[in-house]
């Protein structure tokens, strides 16, 4: 639940929103609390920035991998049979509707069996709700993709978005190209999304 949009906000509310335990020690400069409003260590912040701040929805992707002749995929792919990897939770709530997560993965070009990590792209795909409701292109403000040592923040404005099908099996795809990452992020993206372990995708609204 997001912090209040007006009135008084306590440090304890910030701490709980960030995933802390109520009544336990916290500082406004703790990394998890600062992350609610995207601030760096010691950065200036105003009281108003905390209104409506939210920890976002965290998807934990247990990574799998899939290889084709010229393409590699790392992450979760429900579109594969059987699924490649897994995701938890398996759906996200947009407004009042639940949308199953179809895919969240890094796609990379593969040449002679070797990934060209400079081509890494991120795909995030949701199914429509069970009643066929299609999520809007901009229902989130950013998606923070875990990369080695940090996160890469991706916005709907940067995304190429496709909508296809209808009813509950219709879907919407957000795709970010390698050019939406810095070179350093691409290196750390490849290091994190390598088909092993878990990686997080935080959806901020």
């Amino acid at each position, binding site marked *: 639940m997001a912090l209040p949009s007006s009135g008084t906000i306590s440090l304890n509310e910030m701490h709980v929103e960030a995933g802390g335990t109520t009544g336990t020690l916290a500082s406004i400069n703790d990394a998890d609390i600062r992350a609610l409003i995207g601030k760096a260590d010691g950065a200036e912040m105003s009281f108003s920035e905390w209104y409506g701040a939210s920890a976002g929805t965290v998807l934990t992707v247990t990574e799998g991998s899939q290889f084709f002749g010229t*393409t590699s995929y790392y992450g979760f*792919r429900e579109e594969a049979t059987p699924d490649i990897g897994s995701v938890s939770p398996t759906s996200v709530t947009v407004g009042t509707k639940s949308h199953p997560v179809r895919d969240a993965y890094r796609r990379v070009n593969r040449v002679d069996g070797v990934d060209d990590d400079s081509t890494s792209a991120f795909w995030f795909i949701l199914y429509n709700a069970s009643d066929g409701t299609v999520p809007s292109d901009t229902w989130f403000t950013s998606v923070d993709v875990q990369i080695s040592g940090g996160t890469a923040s991706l916005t709907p*404005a940067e995304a*190429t978005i496709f*909508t*296809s099908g209808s009813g509950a099996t219709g879907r919407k795809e957000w795709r970010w*190209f390698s050019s939406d990452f810095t070179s350093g992020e691409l290196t750390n993206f490849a290091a994190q999304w390598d088909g092993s372990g878990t990686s997080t995708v935080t959806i901020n609204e």
Partner: protein
Amino acid sequence: MEITLDYSAPSEGQERLFGTYQAGEATGSFSCPLLYSDGIMDLDSTLARTKLALEESLAS
């Protein structure tokens, strides 16, 4: 695979392109950032990038 994009001609300064696509049997809609080079809209590159993304989506 032949991909056809149908869209309204964008205006200079417009940030995104909206339209529909047909790729073989597959149809749908798209929205993508318009690419600019030295401040000039690069519609060809925008369309090429969108088609590439579609190809990759449909091939996966």
